[in-house]
């Protein structure tokens, strides 16, 4: 009976004081690359396209507002749905957000988790902008898709 009470106490205290952090990602970038983007026969595409400055918004909620939250980013793509010549980059565009640190310059998203930026506070909404390099007529005509995974931890 004593053990049972202790376990219940641990569960309740853990729920109350644990450093829970949650992330919610909304907005995906879908871009159609048109032949009319080529200015004249003989040329390639300009190669680089940029999304809206708030194409994706990530909302981070943390119980503990004083502890730094690390935001990681990586991509996952199927072999035939992406091309190795495509280089996807990302940055956050809320430059005046004093709660966040880093991530305001474009960085390439790789297949492995890398630090995107740090933030703190209870409730942060961070706008995200993308840039793609390597768009070319040399790539087979098809749809290219990749999944961007954001991970937060304290």
């Amino acid at each position, binding site marked *: 009976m004593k053990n049972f009470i202790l376990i219940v106490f641990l569960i309740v205290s853990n729920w109350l004081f644990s450093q829970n952090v949650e992330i919610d990602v909304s907005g995906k970038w879908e871009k159609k*690359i048109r032949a009319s983007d080529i200015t004249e026969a003989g040329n390639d595409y300009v190669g680089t396209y940029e999304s809206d400055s708030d194409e994706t918004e990530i909302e981070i909620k943390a119980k503990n507002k004083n502890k730094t939250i690390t935001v990681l980013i990586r991509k996952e793509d199927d072999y035939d749905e992406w091309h190795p010549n495509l280089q996807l980059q990302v940055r956050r565009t809320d430059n005046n957000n004093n709660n966040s640190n880093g991530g305001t310059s474009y960085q390439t998203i790789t297949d492995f988790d890398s630090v995107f930026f740090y933030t703190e506070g209870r409730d942060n909404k961070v706008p995200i902008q993308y840039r793609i390099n390597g768009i070319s007529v040399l790539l087979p005509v098809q749809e290219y898709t990749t999944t961007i995974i954001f991970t937060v931890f304290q």
Partner: protein
Amino acid sequence: MRSLIYIICFFYAMSCFAQDNDDTKVTFELSEVAMLDLEPNNTTVTLNVVAPTKAGEKAIIVAANNNKWINFSSAVSAGTMRFISIIIEDGQVPPGIYLKLRTANYVGSGKGDTGVPTSLVTLNNSSQTIVSNIKGAYTGNGENNGYKLTYELEIYDYKLLDFDQSATLSIRLTLSDF
């Protein structure tokens, strides 16, 4: 007692570390591209057969503006190829002469599978391939990029020549899928 220690350690670890993730997608849809252009322009090529200056010599062929450059941009699905064809769309070559087109090898600042030229064709009212096996490629823009075309006249029968005759031909170049 030992299990209780494990439980305490578990909850302590849970309370120290918190993690979550979410994802979104990025999608690009590339379009088919088939763009072709002639450089420096598509103005008229003029070819004249001129009488020789001395009796017994062959007629002189004088050409003006007879070099053009094909520039193209091509984006295709995997496994698809394109070709460039040429046809006399309107008009007839005067009797006694052939109108020929020489296509040089690709040069320029482009990239990709720019294709394989057919060096010399005699133009007529049927479509003929002058560059084949084009895939995803661009030639570069302007003169000295792409395929240099040279129009030539060849006299094959002097007795059919009529020096008072002239003809204006419309020639069409097309970039198509195989």
